C-alpha cells in the first residue's frame, strides 16, 4: 500500500480521469509543451490551487469534451485541457 500512496504523490490524478460528481481541489496546473499558454488560461478561468473542482458531465461519444465545475463557474473543457489540471483530494483543503 505504501508504494501506491507514493505513486499518487508523484503522479497526481488529473481532472480528465475524475469520475462524474466527485469533488476534488486543484493541486496545480501543468501545460503540455505544445500549448504552454494553457496554464495561464486555465488559471484565468479559475483553475487555481485550492479551488474546488468536479466533473459535471461528459460528452458522448468518448467522454470528450467534459463539463467541469470550478468554484462557482462551469466550463466545457476538452480532455487534453482537463488533463492539465492536477487534483488533490478534497480533505487537504481544510488541512492547509
Amino acid at each position, binding site marked *: 500500500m505504501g508504494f501506491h500512496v507514493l505513486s499518487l504523490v508523484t503522479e497526481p490524478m488529473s481532472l480528465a480521469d475524475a469520475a462524474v460528481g466527485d469533488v476534488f481541489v486543484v493541486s496545480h496546473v501543468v501545460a*503540455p509543451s*505544445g500549448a504552454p499558454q494553457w496554464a495561464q488560461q486555465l488559471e*484565468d478561468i479559475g483553475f*487555481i490551487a485550492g479551488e474546488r473542482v468536479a466533473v459535471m*458531465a461528459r460528452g458522448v461519444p468518448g467522454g470528450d*469534451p467534459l*463539463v467541469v465545475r470550478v468554484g462557482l463557474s462551469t466550463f*466545457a473543457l476538452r480532455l*487534453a*485541457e482537463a488533463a492539465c489540471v492536477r487534483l488533490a483530494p478534497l480533505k487537504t483543503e481544510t488541512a492547509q
Partner: protein
Amino acid sequence: MTEAVVHLYRGGPLLALVGNPNCGKTALFNLLTGSRQKVANYAGVTVERKEGKLTTPAGKALRVLDLPGTYSLHPRSPDERVTHDVLYGRAIGEKRPDLVVCVVDATNLRRSLRLLLAVKRLGLPCMVALNMVDLAQARGVTVDAEALARELGVPVVRTVGIEGGGDAALRATLDEAALWRRSSASAGTGGPAIQATGADHDAVRSILRRLGLDELIPHTLSDRIDRMVLHPVLGPLLLAAVLFLIFQAVFAWASAPMDAIKAATGWLGATVGAILPDGWLRSLVVDGVIAGAGGVVVFLPQIVILFFFILVLEESGYLPRAAFLLDRLMGGVGLSGRSFIPLLSSFACAIPGIMASRSIANPRDRLVTIMIAPLMTCSARLPVYALLIGAFIPRRNLWGVLELQGLVLFGLYAAGIAGGLAVAWILKRFTARGQVRTLMMELPTYHMPTLRNIGIGLWQRVAIFMKRVGGVILVLTILLWFLASFPVPPIGATGPAIEHSLAGILGRALAVVFEPIGFNWQISIALVPGMAAREVAVSALGTVYALSATGNDTALALAPLIAQDWSLATALSLLAWYVFAPQCLSTLATVKRETGGWTMPLIVAGYLFSLAYLASFVTYRVASALGAAG
C-alpha cells in the same frame, strides 16, 4: 488599408464597462444607454465596438464604452486583446478611459473580484457595479456593499441589469467628483498590472472570508436543467427538437409576412410604373430599385425570426451547451462547437452567419467556418429550388409516407451540409496539422431572457443587415439591371430585348462554358443577374422566357414553360449548381469585409465555382446516361 476611426458621440468623459463574460455587463449597458447606442468595429479588427451615451442625474453627458468581456488582463482572443489595449491606452484611435466601471457578478464574486484587482492596479479611476444582486439574494447571498467597498478601496454600488431603475445608484454615483480623480497612491503607477493570478485569488478569498461570503453556493436550478440538457441521450434529442423548431419557424412563420412584402413590392412597382412615363427611367425605378430593394426586404421576416431564436438561446445560456453537445461532431472535421452558431445562421443567410464567425477565437477555425458558411442552404436558394422541384419532380408518395418533392428538397439541404463538412475535413488534413485548439468555453448559469435585451439585440442585428446587405444588393441590382437593359435592341429586332443587352452577350459567352453541364443560353443569362441574389435568377428566367415568348404567352407561369423546354438532366444539373455555386456577390463582399482583403473572397469564389461545376457536370452526365436528357 487603414480604416478611418470614427469617434461616435464626440466629447464628454469616457466611461468603460469591464467585466467577465456573462456578468450581465451588456444588460447593464443597455439599461444605462437605452437606445442611444452606436455599433461599429474597433480600428483594424473585426471586434464589435459598442458605445452609448449617458446623462447623469446632474446633467453631465458621458460616453460609455462596453468593452468585450474578459476573464483576465492576459488576452487570449482578439476580443480580449481589445479590452486589454483600451485599458492600457494602447488601442489605435481609442481614448484611455477616464473611469472604469468594473461589473462584478454578485453570484460569482471570486472570479469577478480577481479581475477587479488586476484592473485596479492599472491606476485608472475605478468603481464597482455589483451586478445581479437580485439573483445572489435569491440564492441566499447578501453582499454588504459598504463593507466590500472598504475592503476593496473603491466605491461599490448595487445594480440589477435586467430591471428598470436597477442602475439608479450607479447613475447617482457618477456625479461625485471624487470618483473621477486618480487616487494619489495609484496615479501613474508604472508597475505591472499583472501579478500572479494565485496571489489575487488568495487576496479575494481572504476578503470574502472576512465578509462571510466564502461559501460556495451553486445555482441548483441551473444544475438541474443541465442534468437534462447535457444528458448523453436526452441532450442531443432536445437539441434536435430545438433546431427543428427554429427551422419550422423560419420557414413556416415567415411565409405570411414574406408574401405580404412581395405583394407590397409588386403593388408599389405597379403604382410607380403607372405614374412614370414608359422608358428607361421607369424600368430603372421599377425593375431596378423597387425590385432590388424588395428582394432584400423580403428576407427580413426570416432573418428577424432566426435572430430572435438565436438571441433567446444566447441570453438564456443554452447556446454554449449546444456548442458543447456538437463539439465532438465538429471536431471530426477539424472545427469546434463554436462554429455551430455561424453555420446555423447561414441557413437563413450566409451574411449574418459570416458576421457571427467573429466569436471564434481560433483564426484558422474562423476562416474555415467562413469558407463553408455559403454551403449551408440559405433561404435565397429556396425560390430556385421550389421552381425547379415544382417543374421537374413529380408529386409522388414513396412508400406511402414520404413525399418525393420534399425528399429532393431535403436531399439538397443534406448535400450542402455534406459538402461543407467534406471541405472542412479536407482543410483539416492540410491546415490543422499539429494544431492545438482550445475549447475552455463557459457554460453560464441559465437566465430568463428579457424582452428589452432581445429587442435591442434584434434591432442592432437587423440594422446591420439592412445597412450592409441592403446597400450592396441594391447597388448590384441596379448594376445588373443596367447590364440587362443596355444596349437596347435595334429597331425591328426580333427576340427578347435581354438577348441584345450586355447581360445577353455575357450569357451567350457563358453558355459555351456551361454547355458541358447542360445549361442552355437562357439559364446562362439568368445566372448573371442571379449573382446579385440567388432568387433573382428566377425573375431573370421569367424575363428571358417572357420576353422570348410572344404576345399573351407572358401570362403563362414559368414552371410549365421550363418543364417543356429543359430536360430533367438540365434541371438536376442546375439544382446541383445551386447547392454549391457562390451565387451571391453580397456574401463575397461580406467575406472580404470580415477577412480584410481580397484573398479569402477570391479563394471562396474559386473553390465554390469549381465545386459547383464539378457537381453539375457529374449530375448532368450521370442523369443523361440514365436517359434523363430527352
